[in-house]
């Protein structure tokens, strides 16, 4: 197992895609802050609603709110990028037939998949942390520029940052494992990326339609990923001064499941994806 993890890390660290994905994260986060800055430079419209929204944006950009604001933003970007990372990590082994090369040398199938899962989980944490550092830098610059609040620096705040990064990483895991599962089933990176990201985008559309439904239909979103991820993310805290924007991408949880229930449902999905991935890979033909 140790050998499989070392080998997977060796591949990951020498893979250009790893750095491209991290670079893409930095660019996306920076671009988002720059676009907000350009918007703030125009000043608020005369309407009250616009002034409230303007103030909300200003507060979101402040260093004081970087945890809740930046991590909500990151959840979206990191999910896209980590799904691509993991699906290609598994799918390419089929495309290049390197899975067969490795397994034919006596590497256990479960070790092969477990190493990929562990490196993927590690990459999610690295990705979220890296994106957060970029967001912190952007936020500090804007806070200085607009004389906003840095908040108070304390050990409790530092722990909150660590916990928030952990929560954000956790909500990304189920979709990443979904991409691993479908890369294993279809032996293709492209199809796994397509399906997982398709699910990611379409889920919110379909659950949005079901939000107003009653009975069984109304309960469906609570069993899926998006609502529960939002519930867990709500524990990262709300942006001070935000009056209902629900974070930079307008998400957020109001009246949804509790943090604990959200975490339980996500954990259940995570386990299902993991178990089926291992089971399928253990039994399937690696090369036909």
């Amino acid at each position, binding site marked *: 197992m140790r050998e499989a993890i070392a080998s997977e890390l060796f591949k990951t660290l020498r893979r250009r895609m790893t750095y491209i994905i991290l670079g893409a994260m930095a660019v996306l986060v920076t671009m988002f802050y720059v676009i907000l800055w350009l918007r703030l430079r125009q000043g608020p419209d005369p309407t009250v609603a616009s002034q409230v929204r303007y103030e909300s944006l200003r507060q979101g950009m402040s260093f004081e709110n970087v945890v809740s604001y930046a991590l909500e933003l990151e959840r979206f970007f990191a999910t896209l990028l980590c799904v691509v990372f993991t699906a290609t990590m598994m799918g390419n082994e089929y495309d290049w037939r390197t899975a067969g090369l490795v397994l034919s*040398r*006596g*590497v256990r199938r479960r070790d092969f998949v477990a190493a990929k899962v562990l490196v993927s989980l590690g990459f999610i944490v690295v990705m979220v942390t890296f994106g957060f550092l970029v967001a912190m830098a952007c936020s500090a610059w804007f806070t200085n520029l607009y004389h906003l609040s840095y908040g108070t620096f304390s050990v409790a705040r530092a722990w909150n940052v660590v916990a928030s990064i952990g929560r954000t990483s956790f909500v990304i895991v189920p979709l990443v494992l979904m991409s691993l599962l479908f890369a294993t089933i279809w032996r293709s990176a492209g199809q796994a990326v397509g399906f997982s990201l398709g699910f990611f985008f379409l889920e919110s559309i379909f659950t949005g339609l079901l939000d107003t439904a009653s009975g069984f239909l109304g309960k469906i979103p609570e069993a899926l990923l998006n609502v529960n991820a939002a519930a867990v993310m709500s524990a990262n805290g709300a942006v001070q001064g935000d009056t209902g924007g629900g974070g930079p991408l307008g998400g957020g949880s109001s009246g949804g499941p509790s943090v604990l229930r959200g975490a339980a449902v996500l954990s259940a999905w995570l386990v299902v994806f993991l178990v089926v991935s291992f089971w399928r890979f253990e039994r399937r033909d690696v090369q036909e």
Partner: protein
Amino acid sequence: MKSYGETRAVQGVDLVVEKGHVYGVLGPNGSGKSTTVRLLLGLARPDAGEVQLFGESLTEHGPELLKRVGAVVEAPACIPYLSGRDNLRLLEKYVPNRGEAGIEEALARVHLTDAAHRKFKTYSLGMKQRLGIAAAILHDPELIILDEPSNGLDPQGTREVRELIPELAAEGRTIVLCSHLLHEVEQVCDAVAIFQNGRVIAEGPTAQLMGESARLEVQIADLEAAESLLRKSPWATAVSRQNGSIFIAGAGMQAADVNRLLATNGLYASVLRPLKHSLEEVFFELTGEDTNA
């Protein structure tokens, strides 16, 4: 047994390969030889029955058994963004053996040391094939399975591979060589199995397989008497006359025996020439494949 849909790819294959021998696996496309290799390497799962390697169950002892095997299955498989050397380093990380020394030795053996720093994706097909062979021998395996190792190689590369195979066998390794190059198999293999429709239709030492259908050409003054005499001989299964020569076919027949028989009956051959079938002729005869195809 292994099936793909309605097609039964492999059924009841039992190959006995002597340690240190080079064993050829021949068969038309779709005859089941590549599926057999995949089953042996644990890359495909049998639908029924059990795969055994070194006399032990692959299901029960797969990882331990496969550590004793090196293989190139179809085209060589490596990570395109890694250099040749890093690809071998990666395999060394998965299954540690002799470290950098083993890597350099494997690269030198396939004449890739100078190009080892280049990325795999920049390699020519022949270089990729050679790196595949280096990967197969890296962990010092007892059994090496080479599926079409000369694919894409230029004549020089093909010759190098042909020379490398007996060298590896001389070190006590057992080689299983799947190849479409019948001439190559005839040259390097001690024994051969011929596959058709997922089964082994012929197996045995190469010389024996070729010799089983050996023929002799006899040129002699008294054709009538010689033909009559040879038809009564115990080893001739077929005797025919063509263009002033007699052709005798039979298993285990020796030219000296024929010569002795003729001479003791006062008949003296002016020409007595063994006409051995090539492996190619044996292959096409057994598989019924069209030689012009």
